[in-house]
Structures are given as C-alpha cells and as structure tokens.
C-alpha cells in the first residue's frame, strides 16, 4: 500500500497529495467553466453547447426535487458540486501518479519506517474524493447548510418535524439525520477508494492482471465515477429539499 507525504502544522496533519488533488481539480473546473462560458451566444455552438447541456442536466435534478422558482436558486450550487466531484473522480482514474522514493524526506513525514512499510512507493496525485476527509467535509457542509436553511425557513416547522407523527419517534428522526451525512460521505469515498486500490493491486500484480482486467476495471471506474458524482449531487439536493419543502 502506497503512502502519502504529510505536513505537520499547528498540531494538525495535512496530506499534501490531497491538497494537490483538490487544488488541481478546482483549477481544472474553473478553467473548463471559464472557457466554455466565454463569448456566450444566443445560438450556442461547440463548447457552450456542451456546457449548457451539463447545466440543463443538473437543472433536471433540481426541478425534480423543488418547485421551479426555488430550484433556480440551487442550480449553481448543484452544478458546482457535480463538476468538482465528477472531475475529481475521473482525474484520479486517468492521472494517478506514484513515485518511487529513493531516500527518506523527514520534512514531508516520509521517514524510513513509513517508506519501508509502503515499499518505497509514494503517491503524489490521486482523486481528492478518495480521501475520506474531503468527502466528510463536503457532506458535512451540505448537512449544516440544509439544517440552516430549514431553521431559517421556519424554526417551528423544523422542530416540529422531529416529533412527527408521534413524540416517541424522536430517536428515530435523530438517527436518520445523523446517518445522512455519514452515508453521504462514505458512499462517495468508498466507491472511489475501492476503485483506486484495485487499480493499484492490478497494476502491480502479475502479467495476467495488468492486461485486460486492468483495462476493464479502469473503464468500470470511469463509469462508477460518473454515477457517483450524479448520485452525490442528487442526494445533496434531496437532503436540502427535505428541509425546505412546503408541508403538504
């Protein structure tokens, strides 16, 4: 199993690989969005056409959950989540950089013991979403955002929802609310992490593993990355819409 360079700062451990991955993904999303929205035309063509397709696709998701007036406010948020997760997922499959360490680098946390345990292989680029801290941060942000929107809409409705339809159902509601961010984060992380670990195992395996099985698994990983990005966005909108939906 390969290791990653880490920096100790203010008593916290920062993973350099995850920071590089997040930064590259964010910059790539920014470049794609800037390039495709440059020189907008009423009659779209080429890149603009493609990007309008992406936005309309996400508009379909938000319209499914919310009424069209409120959905328009959340399209930008949903497109941001979708593009970041999608590009992060696919980047890790296409561009996985593992270096062979020749000597220990104590400033990056790569001491001799750590390198020996990891067979001298150091990962320098992988999916930001294959690190659980990133997905927990994203799911946590969505969790707090949805509750904030629920409280802002109507504090009474928000509190009342916990004791519906009977008061003794309060523990069930609490478990439900806590399970949402946990499964939301773990679903994305586990899919991408398991995919990358299997790519590493196949890549470093025997000759009969590195051929067709590796190509097939990489293809499947691209597919899983797209599906999981979509599901992450859909679930984010479901959790938000549950909190701000009107009673019916």
């Amino acid at each position, binding site marked *: *199993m390969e290791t990653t360079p880490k920096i100790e700062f203010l008593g916290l451990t920062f993973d350099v690989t995850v920071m590089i991955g997040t930064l590259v993904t964010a910059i790539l999303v920014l470049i794609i969005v800037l390039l495709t929205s440059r020189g907008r035309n009423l009659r779209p063509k080429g890149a603009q056409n493609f990007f309008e397709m992406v936005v309309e696709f996400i508009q379909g998701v938000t319209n499914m959950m919310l009424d069209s007036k409120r959905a328009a406010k959340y399209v930008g948020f949903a497109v941001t989540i979708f593009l970041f997760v999608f590009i992060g997922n696919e980047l890790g499959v296409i561009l996985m950089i593992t270096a062979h360490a020749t000597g220990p680098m104590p400033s990056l946390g790569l001491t001799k013991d750590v390198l020996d345990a990891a067979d001298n292989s150091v990962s320098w680029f992988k999916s930001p979403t294959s690190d659980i801290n990133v997905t927990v941060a994203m799911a946590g942000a969505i969790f707090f955002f949805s509750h904030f929107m629920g409280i802002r809409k109507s504090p009474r409705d928000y509190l009342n929802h916990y004791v519906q339809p009977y008061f003794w159902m309060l523990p069930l509601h609490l478990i439900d609310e806590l399970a949402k961010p946990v*499964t939301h984060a773990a*679903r994305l*992380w*586990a*899919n991408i992490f*398991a995919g990358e670990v299997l790519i590493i195992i196949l890549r470093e395996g025997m000759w009969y593993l590195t051929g067709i099985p590796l190509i097939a698994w990489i293809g499947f990983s691209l597919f899983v990355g797209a*599906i999981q990005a*979509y*599901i992450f966005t859909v679930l984010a909108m479901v959790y938000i819409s549950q909190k701000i939906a009107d009673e019916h």
Partner: protein
Amino acid sequence: MDLAVLAGGIMIAFGALAAGIGNGILFSRYLEGIARQPEARGTLFGQGMITLGLVEALPIISIAFGLLVLFGIIGG
C-alpha cells in the same frame, strides 16, 4: 495466520455477496419491466443506474473498510 487478513477477507466477501443479491434483485426487476413495457427501456435504464449506485453503496463501504483492514491501515 494474521487475523487482520481473515477479517478483511470476510468483509470483502460479505460485501460482494450483498452487492450480488442487491444487484440481482434490481436487474431482474429491470428486465421484467422491459419485458412488460419495451418502450420504457430508456427511462428504466436511467432510474436503474441511479438505484444501482444507491444499492452498491453499503457493500462498497464494507469492501473499502475491508481493504483498509487488509492492508493494516486501521484496526491492526
């Protein structure tokens, strides 16, 4: 034998078992739906793929933790 290897193996095996059962039920119903209403294939495929992602989540979480245990990153 190292118990972590056994534990990781069991977690991966049950993850695969659960995913197999879940996907089997999902796609058998998908095929039944197509057989009954062949023109609904397009919408059913999209919905089926979303459900596939939801069904696969818990088995794959179990497999990811199994891999972590197997490589001795947690619970060694």
